């Protein structure tokens, strides 16, 4: 079980070795990994849509999709067929090239980041030694594609959504990168596989600085993939659907797919960096990884089911005035824990972080909601 997927791959590569020259075997090994990822992406997206609808429904005391197949398991397929057969509309004023390219290009980084995610022991498609940076760099290119989509479809709602999306992504990206720094310092590597291996003793989320880092990273990740409560770019009550207002059918499905794959990859990276990746007792490593990732995805949907959308100035305020200083303060805290011995290595970072949270909360008091007085209750 442990090496199930690796064995399958070896089997395929060995089969290829019978007919192909040595260089072809290397190539086919790469292609098998790539195809696995390419197949995984849409599959993940399809079943995340179902999971989201189910979870949200249960939180609202509904049942959710249950018509197509048992427990609605065929619902994603039905949706896919619907999307495929829908009319493909192109606004006459749209920029043809940009409008055509944007949905394709948005899926590319979303799929490419899967290459560095360690799905299990030795199950990283490409164990780059700059893995984390690769992830962040590729997901940052999404902003350009969103610009292409919003500007290319010549719709004011698209442009508004694109502007919102980009300003939000830029703001949170800074915090996202800084929040990873303590982990990189502790692991001494940018490779995701090494980071997971360095957590064999203790998860980084089990340390005060790691926990804070994890929370900041997760919140910023949510904002990066425009998930609720940071879904201002797609705020349907204000700007229709944001940058994909003008898209329909399969093009829209590609945007949707990219969004869900981003959710998955952010959760997977959070697991990799902070929650011990595929480390875990008894069960096979890839199963542990998937369990942890899906728990985090559940939390994402849970947020969606609970929290209302942030106001634009609160969104920016949260990033720049609270999370960013906190992430910066986290770096010296993590360094302290590295250089101090045991009782202090937890206590001192904890003290630093608590003081900084208190100070930041004090300075951000203006954002706190006023205590409401309900005149006609009680």
């Amino acid at each position, binding site marked *: 079980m442990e090496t199930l997927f690796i064995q399958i791959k070896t089997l395929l590569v060995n089969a290829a070795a019978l007919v192909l020259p040595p260089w072809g075997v290397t190539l086919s090994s790469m292609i098998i990994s790539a195809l696995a990822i390419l197949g995984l992406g849409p599959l993940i997206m399809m079943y995340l849509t179902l999971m989201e609808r189910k979870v949200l429904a249960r939180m609202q005391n*509904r049942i959710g999709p249950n018509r197509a197949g048992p427990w609605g398991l065929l619902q994603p397929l039905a949706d896919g067929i619907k999307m495929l057969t829908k009319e493909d509309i192109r606004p006459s004023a749209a920029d043809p090239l940009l409008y055509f390219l944007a949905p394709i290009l948005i899926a590319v980084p979303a799929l490419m980041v899967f290459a560095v995610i360690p799905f299990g022991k030795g199950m990283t498609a490409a164990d780059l030694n700059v893995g984390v940076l690769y992830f962040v760099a590729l997901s940052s290119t999404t902003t350009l594609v969103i610009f292409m989509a919003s500007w290319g479809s010549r719709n004011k709602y698209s442009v508004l959504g694109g502007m919102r999306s980009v300003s939000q992504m830029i703001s949170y990206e800074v915090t996202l990168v800084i929040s990873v720094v303590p982990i990189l310092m502790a692991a001494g590597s940018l490779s995701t596989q090494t980071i997971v291996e360095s957590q064999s003793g203790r998860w980084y989320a089990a340390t005060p600085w790691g926990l804070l880092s994890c929370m900041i990273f997760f919140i910023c990740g949510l904002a990066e993939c425009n998930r609720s409560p940071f879904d201002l770019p797609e705020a349907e009550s204000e700007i229709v659907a944001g940058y994909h207002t003008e898209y329909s059918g399969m093009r829209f499905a590609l945007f949707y797919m990219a969004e869900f794959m981003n959710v998955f990859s952010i959760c997977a990276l959070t697991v990799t960096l902070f929650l011990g990746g595929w480390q875990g007792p008894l069960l096979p490593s890839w199963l542990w990884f998937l369990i942890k990732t899906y728990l985090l995805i559940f939390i994402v949907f849970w947020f969606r089911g*609970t929290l209302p959308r942030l106001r634009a100035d609160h969104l920016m305020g949260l990033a720049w005035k609270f999370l960013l200083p906190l992430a910066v303060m986290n770096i010296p805290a993590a360094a302290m824990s590295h250089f101090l011995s045991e009782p202090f290595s937890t206590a001192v970072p904890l003290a630093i972080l608590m003081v900084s949270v208190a100070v930041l909360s004090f300075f951000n008091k203006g954002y706190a909601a006023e205590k409401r007085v309900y005149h006609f209750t009680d």
Partner: protein
Amino acid sequence: MIFGAGILKGMLVTLRSFVNSYFKKPDQGGLFTVEYPEKRLVAKERFRNFPFLVYDEKPEDPRCVACDICAKECPPKCITIVRDADAEGRPLKKPALFDIDLSVCMNCGICEEACPFDAIFMDHEFEIAGTERHQSLLYHKEDLLKSNGYFRQIRPSDAALIDARRKEAEDKKKAALKPAAPPEKKE
């Protein structure tokens, strides 16, 4: 007063309803969805949808006497009645044609209230979708006629009341059969 306490509180609410939806009964905060085509809620007795005609023994003799009161009272004017006549052309006390256009009917129940002969009542039937827009929703006498037994079944307490009243009137009529003028039913 702790930072984010409100968020945690809200998260707990949704988590509770998520968990309850799997493990609790509807009255304890669980799912109260009834999956309609397979399961259905029992309709309340006074639930009213579209009207139907009642007959006592056989469909050829409906209670309806084609008095046209319901057709006149009907706010959207969806009832059409043509009185039947015998071979010599004398009018009979029963309808030759009784059509209700259910696409026009607004389920108000005024016909039921207006009928002095307890002949028209509101039905519980609501699944009347058809593949065609005009003819499938135009119900004729044959479609509308249902037995008193059916009426007792869907609205037992109303049926008991009405049956008792009718029986009383019948008895009175029988008792007064010797005097010349049969007493008309009042109200």
